[in-house]
């Protein structure tokens, strides 16, 4: 994990619990601030349904892996921490994969290969390495909730933008016809995420000037 996040890993709250909970939501938002885990974000955010389904899957894996990594942090020697993280994460991902396949076949058809690919989602291994390996179980759990909420909010925004503009629907309900198809295609994903990041940078710059 890069040095740029090491020096500034809090969001200025005194209470370490609240700090852990809110860090991932805005200040350390995995997508628009840390810019990790972008591959599934771009690929899956074509509709709100997909975006929310993906976020819930990622949230489950993130919470599970953060808690177990933190539980096992004394058991895990430093040299093999990465293989241990990978085993823990892939176990949770496979569980999610089976559960979705069994209970939500429609969602599984939509997400397809991107569920197994959560294994290599940097958000999860990033939080394991940067936070859970060094902090208590409860704090790690709060951190996972925070990052999941941050992930969900951004993915929901991108998904909603792309679905409304690209298909003219919202949660599969038709709003208008003749949509702008490019928004559903890959370029639409880049445009949307770029605009969101740009707006955030603009806001931060203005805040600094004041």
């Amino acid at each position: 994990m890069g040095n740029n996040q090491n020096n500034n890993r809090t969001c200025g709250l005194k209470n370490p619990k609240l700090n852990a909970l809110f860090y991932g939501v805005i200040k350390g938002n995995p997508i628009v601030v840390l810019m990790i885990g972008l591959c599934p974000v771009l690929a899956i955010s074509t509709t709100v349904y997909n975006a929310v389904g993906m976020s819930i899957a990622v949230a489950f894996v993130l919470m599970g892996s953060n808690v177990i990594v933190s539980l096992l942090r004394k058991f895990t020697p430093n040299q093999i921490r990465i293989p241990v993280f990978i085993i823990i994460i892939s176990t949770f991902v496979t569980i999610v994969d089976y559960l979705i396949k069994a209970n939500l076949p429609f969602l599984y058809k939509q997400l397809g290969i991107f569920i197994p690919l959560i294994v290599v989602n940097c958000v999860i291994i990033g939080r394991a390495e940067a936070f859970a390996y060094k902090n208590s179980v409860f704090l790690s759990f709060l951190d996972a909730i925070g990052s999941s909420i941050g992930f969900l909010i951004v993915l929901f925004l991108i998904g909603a933008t792309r679905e409304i503009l690209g298909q003219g629907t919202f949660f599969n309900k038709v709003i208008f016809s003749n949509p702008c198809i490019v928004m559903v295609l890959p370029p639409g994903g880049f445009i949307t995420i770029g605009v969101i990041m740009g707006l955030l940078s603009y806001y931060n710059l203005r805040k600094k000037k004041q």
Partner: protein
Amino acid sequence: MNNKFILKIIDISFRLTILCVVSAMLLSWVYKETKTKIEENIKKEIETAQKDALPGAVSFQEKESGKKKYVEGYDANGNSVGKIFVLSERGYGSEIKMMVGVNNGKIVGIKVIQHTETPGLGDGITKKNFLNQFIDKSLNQLLLKKDGGEIEAITGATISSKACIKIAKEALEYGKQSEQQ
């Protein structure tokens, strides 16, 4: 010093092994718990697709004619109501896989099972108002309107539309062949 090093290696491998075993046990348990449901889902999906392709059929039987496998559908009285062929054809993105129900030289039902056509353009082939055009059409009617047939292509997706027509035609031909034998 050397001894310490070896002990360290053993310690590390031991820990990693324990973790792997626990993980494998957990996964095999989850696999066992979800297996029946997953298989049920797949079966249900195939069945609903078959019922869509052959309206009125209640039971199905796999058969083979020549080298082509197909599914024969029967109604409640045991009379054959048609045959289902699963065929694929190269579309614009990649293979389009369709399930086509055929009876008496006419299409009775058609359904897309798998495709990677462009969202918003080519994926119109999954929509009802495109596929319903195929119902009750015979071999010589299966052409695009501009070629003198009765199928209206999807705007901006002629290749995808043509691939569907090709599949439907192939199904009718297979249907004819299986009846001759």
